């Protein structure tokens, strides 16, 4: 496996991991599991409703920065950075 292929493999792994979290908070907690989660209250918010209209968006922001930071590290590790 070349250096480029190894880098791409690591990138794919990270991306899939992030997308799983992305799917769980939005489609999982916000849509598919909204009914059971709504039985739990977060202040005045039913939890499922909160994920659908607030929480998932906060997680999206965190995810992108986590991905961007980790990729910057990988770029350096595999020496594929732009100069």
């Amino acid at each position, binding site marked *: 496996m070349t250096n*480029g292929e190894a*880098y*791409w493999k690591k*990138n794919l792994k990270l*991306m899939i991991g*992030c*997308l799983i979290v*992305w799917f769980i908070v*939005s*489609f999982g907690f*916000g*849509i*598919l599991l*909204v*009914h059971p989660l*709504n039985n739990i209250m*977060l*202040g*005045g*918010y*039913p939890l499922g*409703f*909160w994920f*659908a*209209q*607030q929480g*998932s*968006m*906060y997680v*999206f*922001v965190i*995810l*992108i*920065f986590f*991905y*961007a930071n980790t*990729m*910057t590290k990988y*770029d350096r590790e595999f*020496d*594929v*950075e*732009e100069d």
Partner: protein
Amino acid sequence: MTLQATTYLVVGLTFAIYITIAILARAKSTSDFYVAGKGVHPVLNGMATGADWMSAASFISMAGLIAFMGYDACVYLMGWTGGYVVLAMMLAPYLRKFGKFTVPEFIGDRYYSHAARITAVVCLITCSITYVIGQMKGIGVAFSRFLEVEFSTGLFIGMGIVFVYAVLGGMKGITYTQIAQYCVLIFAYTVPAVFIGFQLTGNPVPQLALGSTLTDGSGVHLLAKLNTIIVDLGFAEYTAQKWSTLNVFLLTLSLMVGTAGLPHVLIRFFTVPKVRDARFSTGWALVFISLLYTTAPAVGAMARTNMMNTFQTGPVGSPTGNLLYADRPSWFTNWEKTGLLKWVDKNGDGRIQYYNDKNKAFDEKAASYGWKGNEMVKIDRDIMVLANPEIANLPFWVIALVAAGGIAAALSTAAGLLLAISSAISHDLLKSVFMKNINEKQELLASRIAMAFAVIVAGILGLHPPGFAAQVVALAFGLAASSIFPALMMGIFSKRINRTGAIAGMLTGIGSTLLYIFLYKGWFFIQGTAPLAEPQDWLLGINPQSFGAVGAVLNFVVAFLVSKATEPVPEHIQHLVEDIRIPKGAGTAVSH
């Protein structure tokens, strides 16, 4: 000073700011007009992307839809933010590495064919025009209220202004103007939310106010109270799911994927200085977008609460429990002038009864109250955000500010899309494929004709749009999701998809989605030509807005199967794919 004078003043002032910045910045940036984000810090580029992105749909329309849809509106909230995650991880860094300026250019090169490029142009124009129709609705609403005229008059005036704005370059590519627009937009959106949140719950942070208890001493949470208010009038609970799970799921997916396939958003990441910046810019863009998107649910719920309380002044069912029409507040009369708000006295008592007369279970109760049907026969969802500060009796300057924000949002995005349409025609079609000898002057003329044509088409269709602004925009996202996104994604993540597969995929995706939309919304969105009715004829219960996700799946499947059956991808294209996956060696973006 009257409200109208204040509005003129504030709208005028904000425009003076944009134009001043545009003139100051233009001197330095005419040479690299296309390279909008170059040398700009990712934070500022993210802010400018936010302004580009947030249109009349986000600013004017979305919170109104939330107010009436409740939980189900999470499709717009998650759909239009979650797409940035997809964008940051699957497209933006690679498109930046590729280093060209337009989406059709990438598709044309990756799939080594003019036919693929032309197909991409057709897809791009189809979704952009649909998008502009939605914007036109929003523009019509904003201008009709701002000038206190009928909706159609407001729309025609708005069309003219959009055209002039777009021909002048729409102040596009001038990142600093967009940063100013973002500041006006977000300030205009959050100030009333802070005021109203504080009035209702004592908490000035809208995101927290929505989950807080009311200050009326009852100790009841805002959302719980809203549920009670509307259930008492025969509506479904605000926090409950009304749509089928399938539709909520598909529409969210369709909007997310569509976000990642929209040309005017993608273009901002083609031109940032480095691949790394493309990733971070996407993150910052989402930070600034989320500021508005996490405020919107609070705006929607509070607007609904205040509106219900305006009409229902006393206990439900008591003869004096409803507002006298003669006592209606000034916002009511103002919006009546636009024709977007209408009241009919069905039971002849001179009072306003607003309730859900489609709920059979509530009929008996309504009859016992002496109510003869819902008397608010028209409440256009798209007026809610603009009317919201008036309903809450906020100071004139806040109301004026919201009008200024709405107009800025609608104009900037509409102009940006018109530029995308005209450059696709003049640059990607005429100059590169059909009329290679065209000179610069002719290219400019062609792009203006295309722009004028697009404004007129979108304006006329915007008079009787196939839905509220945000819903029409959702259709545009479905079209982008089904055509452009899969072609881009497969171009990066697969070395096996060839030109025949990509073209067949794009055509299947956009063709099926367009057909499904036209069947329910009318051929070419012309009112009254729809062969099938909504929603009882929906295939498997799928809403036309949600079909983009299905179209995208069809696109992937067809592209894969056709590629398998036809010629392999040439060696040099496989190397190109390997190359775009690695940041090293990215030069600055170049034309052609």
